[in-house]
């Protein structure tokens, strides 16, 4: 029975305008110069150039530059022919090689980010699903409540957690009263679970919102069609809902995992050196005199690492777009 269920048909998308000729001419016959429409992109282009490409070049110049001989402040070197790769090589040696004592932090970062993103998804998806499909007239209120934590600074909320999680804090008291943990648990002494849950806590709204938007946009008649054609609720979910919300899920995961890779304050406040992550390596290197080039190198390495999930996301959205076209 199940195997006979057909793949749901996608709705017909209006044909995309193809080629540049169409863009240059309106149906009324008004002709626009070639640069007219591309010029609309210039604010964003200028923005990118000033706030991304230029700073990126400064980071490169710092990473391959030197530091001030007196105070050790980073001295970027802007002429590529003066660049020195010694700091970069040193940093690579910290991750791979004989003195690779940064390697555990790198691996830990991957594990923490993976688990935290997964938890965000497992917790966030049902919430987003419920609000989008069954929120009814309270949708607005639910969304408001979801965004409510943003009204208080993340830092403040983490400080609050710090005091809740101390050995004689409320969390331990509740666990004791409920006979779950008779002895107080030392949550803040570098426990991976504390850091992972703190990451989930801090980032989950960023996942819920795009997923909500995705599910909310979904065509309900497709679900009904799935059920009409005899699919069980699980099959409908797996073969209709999930593929339809894949882009939203991916977007949500990218939005939460990218900043998690560079997050350092969550671990600073909820963990210890035993739970150091990549962001902590950057943080402690950048605040140390004379370490500017190494910090710059770390930033570059993190960027390269982040390109991988980003590239996957872009490829996947492109494919989805092509599939719809």
């Amino acid at each position, binding site marked *: 029975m199940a195997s006979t269920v057909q793949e749901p048909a996608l709705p017909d998308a209006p044909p995309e305008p193809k080629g540049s000729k169409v863009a240059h001419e309106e149906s009324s016959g008004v002709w626009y110069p070639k640069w007219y429409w591309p010029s609309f992109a210039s604010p964003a282009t200028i923005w990118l150039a000033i706030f991304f490409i230029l700073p990126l070049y400064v980071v490169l110049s710092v990473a391959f530059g030197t530091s001030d001989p*007196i*105070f050790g402040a980073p001295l970027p070197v802007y002429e590529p022919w003066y660049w020195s790769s010694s700091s970069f090589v040193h940093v690579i040696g910290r991750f791979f090689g004989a003195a690779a*004592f*940064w390697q555990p932090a790198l691996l830990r970062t991957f594990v923490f980010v993976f688990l935290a993103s997964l938890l965000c998804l497992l917790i966030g998806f049902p919430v987003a699903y419920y609000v989008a499909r069954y929120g009814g007239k309270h949708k607005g209120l639910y969304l408001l409540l979801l965004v409510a934590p943003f009204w208080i600074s993340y830092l403040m909320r983490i400080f609050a957690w710090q005091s809740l999680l101390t050995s004689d804090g409320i969390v331990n008291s509740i666990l004791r009263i409920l006979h779950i943990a008779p002895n107080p648990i030392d949550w803040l002494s570098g426990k991976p679970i504390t850091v992972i849950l703190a990451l989930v806590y801090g980032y989950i709204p960023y996942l819920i919102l795009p997923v909500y938007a995705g599910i909310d946009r979904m065509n309900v008649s497709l679900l009904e069609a799935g059920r009409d054609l005899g699919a069980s609720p699980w099959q409908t979910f797996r073969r209709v809902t999930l593929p339809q919300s894949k882009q939203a899920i991916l977007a949500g995961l990218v939005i939460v995992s990218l900043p998690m890779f560079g997050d350092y304050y969550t671990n*600073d406040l909820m963990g210890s*050196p035993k739970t150091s992550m990549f962001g902590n390596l950057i*943080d402690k290197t950048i605040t140390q005199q004379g370490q500017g080039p190494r910090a710059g190198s770390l930033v570059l390495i993190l960027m390269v690492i982040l390109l991988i999930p980003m590239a996957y996301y872009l490829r996947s959205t492109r494919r989805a777009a092509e599939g719809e076209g």
Partner: protein
Amino acid sequence: MPSPTERRFSRRQFLYRAAGAAVAVPTLSAILAACAKPGQLPSGVTLLEPARQDRPVTLPLYGREPIATDAPLEEGATLQIYNWDSYLYKKTLKEFTAKYGVNIEYTTYNNMEEGIQKISTGQIKPDVFWTDIDKINKLVMAKLLQPLNHDLIPNLEKNVWPVYQNPFYDQHWRYTVPYVTWTTGVGYRRDHIDDAEVAAKGYDILWDPQYNGKVSIYDDYRTALGMSLLKNGIYDLNTGSEADLKLAADDLVRLLDATNARVSINASYSAFPADEIWLSQAWSGDMVGDQYYLPKGVPTSVLGYWYPKERNGEVNNDTMVIPASAQHPVAAHTFINFMLDKKYAFENFADWVGYQPPQNSINPTELVADGVVPKTIPEAVVRQDDFKKGHLLLELNRDTDQLWFDAWDQVTSGG
């Protein structure tokens, strides 16, 4: 080495760091300098050897003269003070204004690096600045300080410990005047741990697994590694020996493994008085100050402070200086002299700061008897002799500093 007063920046450190690590942002002048010759010293400046007790440094004047003795006081002006947060008693400042008719504006920095950076870029033009002794060479080489006129600061000779009449880090005190002193030892909660046990174990008690979750050490590479060196019988706290530093770092990793210690700059005055931490690497001034941080109803007798009884632990002081860009240099001299007055120095220490000025009039025995220092922590009183027997964390040359940083890096990377 950040001074103990780094504790003052406490929770704001994250805001500061989150602001994008201002220290790391290259300044325009640095960028322009980089265009010419990356990484060169300013013209006419040679690198000064780091000062040591047996290798005193006479700081060059670079042709600069102190201000004239008969220069008039800038009455009605506003003296710009640039210092750690809460590192001066407001009442003492008001008394200065009342006495000399000079107002005071108090600006704070979160750490030494930020302070120096803002002065060197001209973002802040203070009249008086506070600095650790390991930064003095650098400030002078960068020509950021002005030499002092001794005639305007008679209280130094009159009131301050002889050891500071001609300190090794600034012979003839050309640029600096000492502010406060401290030792670095182990703070312990006497309501949980016996004096005898701490006395018997010394530094080792921080490594004791029975205090798992109850230990903290300072989040400062020099201070933490320095203690580990001392624990291992290495008394050169400015060592350039890779083997010694590796030993110290490995031992600190063992400490973290054994006790899950917190690595924190403020545990000694927050988690410790709150009883979350029972054993804390601690600056003596933090321990004296902790009497005010204890929750209501908790007697000061819970505070304990251990420092080696041979008095051969970590000891240090910081200094007051007048930046070259000071707008009110006469008032600045007057203020420094005022802070060396025995009455005001004592008031500032006993009623607010907790860190002890090196004043002849301050009698260690009386400090305890008068209740300025709680009876249970007499060891927290700094004595002049400590600067002969104790060991100072001093400036390192760049390569050595790198070794220290690498060693600490290993400790804090959670390998």
